[in-house]
C-alpha cells in the first residue's frame, strides 16, 4: 500500500475511532491595532468588521479539513490583540462595549470562543489596563463567547503584586456575577505569568503585539492515544515509557502540523505555530491523569505524581518538536481538574489536593487550571494562590496560570457542573490561613536572577 503499511493505517484509524485523537483547536490570531479609534463605537464596528472579514471561512475550512482528512477538529476559535491596548484610546466609555463587539463577531463567524479581553500589566498599569481589569466581571457576565486573561508577571519583569491583589477581587467578582450559571465566568478568566503571545488554547489565548496581522495557530491533543500506547507496552522501564511517549507525541503532532499547514493554505493566512499539548476532555479515556496512573500510580495525586508528570511533559515536547516546523504556545501536558475524568476522580477521593496540584504545575505546561474552590474563599487567598503560581512561573522561566472558580454558595466537597468540555468536579479545599498582610503590601516582586542574562 504505497509507503504506508497496513499496521500504520489501522493504528491511525484506531487512534481516531477509539482513543479520542483529535486536533483540539484551530485558532486564528487577528491583530486589532488598526481598529483603534478615539470614537469607541467606530472602533467596535471596525473590530467586528475585521474579525468577520478575516474569519468568515474559518469554521467552514476547519470542517472541510476535518471531513477530508478524517480527523475531528473540535474547536475553531479567534484570538485578538489585548483589548486594553485598543480601549486605552477611549477612556470616556467602559471597555465592555469592546467585549460585546467581540461577542457579536464570534456569533457571526460561528466560532465558540474569542480570546483577548486582556491586559498585560506585569510591570505596571496604564489607565486602559485598569479600566479593562475593572470591567472584566461585567464583560464576562454579559457575553457568551468572550475569554479574558491578565498577565501579572514575567521572568524579565518580576511580579506586579498590586495586580495580583486586584485579580483576587476580580476572580471573586466574576464568579459572583455569574453565580446563577455555576460561576462559569471564572472559567473564562486566566491570570498568567509569562503569558505566551501565540497560545491557541482558551481561555488564555490572545494575539500578541509581535505577531503578524493574522496567523493560524493549532493546538493538538491526544491523552487517550498516549495512555493506550502505554497500556499496550506493559511493564517496561521508564526509559522505554519516555521513548514511547515521544514516538506517540510525534505522530499526534505531525497530524496537527498537517492540519495547520492545510488551514493556513486554504485561508491564505500565515501558519504560526503548533502547540504540542496533551489537552484532556471529560470524556472517559481522554485523561492526562489516566496516563500517570497507567505509568503505575494507584491514583493521580499520590507521591510520584510530580515525577511521572515531569517525564510525560518532557517527552511530549521532545516527540513533538521534531514533528512541527514551528512550536509555540503552551506546549506540554495540561492538568485542568474539571476537564479531566481522572483528575475529577482523584480530587473526589481526596488523593489530589491543591498543594499537590501546585507542585505538579512546576513541571508541566500550564498551572492551577479549572479548579473549583469554596465560594466564600477570601479574595486575598485567591490573590495568594495567584502569587504562588506566578512565582513558580517567574523563577522557572515558564508559563504558569491560575484559573480557579470560586463556587458561589458552595463549600468544599460540593460539586460544580458546567457540562460540555468544561466538565465539572468537586469544590476543593483551600488552606484557610490568612496571607492578607502579605498580599496587601502590594509593590513588585523583583525579577529573579534568571532575568539578568544580558
Amino acid at each position, binding site marked *: *500500500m*504505497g*509507503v*504506508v503499511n*497496513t499496521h*500504520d*493505517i*489501522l*493504528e*491511525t*484509524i484506531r487512534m481516531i*475511532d477509539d482513543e479520542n485523537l483529535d486536533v483540539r483547536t484551530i485558532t486564528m490570531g487577528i491583530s486589532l491595532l488598526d481598529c483603534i479609534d478615539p470614537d469607541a463605537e467606530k472602533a467596535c464596528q471596525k473590530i467586528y468588521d475585521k474579525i468577520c472579514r478575516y474569519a468568515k471561512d474559518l469554521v467552514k475550512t476547519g470542517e472541510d479539513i476535518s*471531513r*477530508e*482528512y*478524517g*480527523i475531528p477538529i473540535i474547536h475553531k476559535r479567534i484570538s485578538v490583540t489585548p483589548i486594553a491596548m485598543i480601549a486605552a484610546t477611549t477612556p470616556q466609555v467602559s471597555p465592555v462595549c469592546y467585549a460585546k463587539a467581540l461577542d457579536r463577531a464570534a456569533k457571526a463567524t460561528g466560532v465558540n470562543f474569542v480570546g483577548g479581553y486582556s491586559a498585560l500589566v506585569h510591570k505596571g498599569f496604564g489607565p486602559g489596563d485598569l479600566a479593562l481589569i475593572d470591567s472584566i466581571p461585567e464583560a464576562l457576565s454579559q457575553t457568551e463567547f468572550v475569554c479574558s486573561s491578565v498577565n501579572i508577571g514575567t521572568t524579565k519583569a518580576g511580579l506586579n503584586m498590586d495586580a495580583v491583589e486586584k485579580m483576587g477581587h476580580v476572580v471573586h467578582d466574576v464568579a459572583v456575577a455569574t453565580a446563577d450559571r455555576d460561576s462559569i465566568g471564572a472559567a473564562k478568566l486566566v491570570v498568567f505569568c509569562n503569558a505566551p503571545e501565540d497560545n491557541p488554547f482558551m481561555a488564555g489565548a490572545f494575539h500578541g503585539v509581535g505577531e503578524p496581522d493574522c496567523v493560524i495557530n493549532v493546538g493538538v491533543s491526544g491523552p487517550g492515544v498516549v495512555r493506550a500506547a502505554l497500556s499496550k507496552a506493559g511493564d517496561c522501564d521508564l526509559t522505554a515509557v519516555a521513548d514511547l511517549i515521544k514516538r506517540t507525541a510525534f*505522530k499526534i503532532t*505531525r*497530524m496537527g*502540523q*498537517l492540519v495547520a499547514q492545510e488551514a493556513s493554505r486554504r485561508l491564505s493566512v500565515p501558519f504560526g505555530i503548533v502547540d504540542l499539548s496533551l489537552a484532556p476532555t471529560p470524556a472517559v479515556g481522554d485523561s492526562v491523569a489516566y496516563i500517570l496512573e497507567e505509568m503505575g500510580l494507584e491514583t493521580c495525586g499520590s507521591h510520584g505524581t510530580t515525577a511521572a508528570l515531569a517525564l510525560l511533559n518532557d517527552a511530549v515536547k521532545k516527540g513533538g518538536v521534531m514533528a512541527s516546523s514551528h512550536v509555540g504556545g503552551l506546549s506540554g501536558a495540561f492538568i485542568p481538574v474539571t476537564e479531566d475524568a481522572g483528575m475529577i476522580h482523584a480530587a473526589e477521593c481526596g488523593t489530589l489536593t491543591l498543594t499537590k496540584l501546585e507542585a505538579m504545575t512546576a513541571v508541566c505546561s500550564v498551572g492551577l487550571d479549572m479548579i473549583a474552590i469554596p465560594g466564600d474563599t477570601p479574595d486575598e487567598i485567591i490573590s495568594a494562590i495567584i502569587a504562588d503560581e506566578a512565582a513558580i512561573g517567574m523563577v522557572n522561566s515558564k508559563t504558569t496560570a491560575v484559573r480557579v472558580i470560586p463556587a458561589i454558595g458552595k463549600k468544599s466537597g460540593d460539586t460544580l457542573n458546567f457540562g460540555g468540555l468544561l466538565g465539572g468536579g468537586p469544590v476543593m479545599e483551600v488552606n484557610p490561613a490568612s496571607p492578607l498582610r502579605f498580599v496587601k503590601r502590594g509593590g513588585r516582586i523583583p525579577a529573579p536572577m534568571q532575568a539578568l542574562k544580558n
Partner: protein
Amino acid sequence: MRAILTVVGKDTVGILAKVSQVCAKEHVNIMDVTQSIMQDLFVMIMLVDISSCAVPFSSLQDELEAIGTDMNLKIHVMHEDIFNSMHRI
C-alpha cells in the same frame, strides 16, 4: 488526490463487491488493494484515486459509510496525506 479507504469488521460475502461497485459508479480508480483477517476481523485497505470522482468527496464518504452501516462494518475514506505525515519522517 489519492485517498485511503479502509473497511474493518466481521467478514461477510460481498464486501469487496459492494465497495468496488460504488467506486466504479463514482469514477474512483482503485490503485491497490490488500485484505486480510486479523484477529477474526476482516480488514481491507484500498488506495484510491479520486481525482475524477463524479461526486464531492464528502458525498463519496457518505455513500461508503452508509454501506458500512448496512453491513455492520466500519468504512473510512481519508486523504492519504494524513497517513504519510503521521507515519513517515
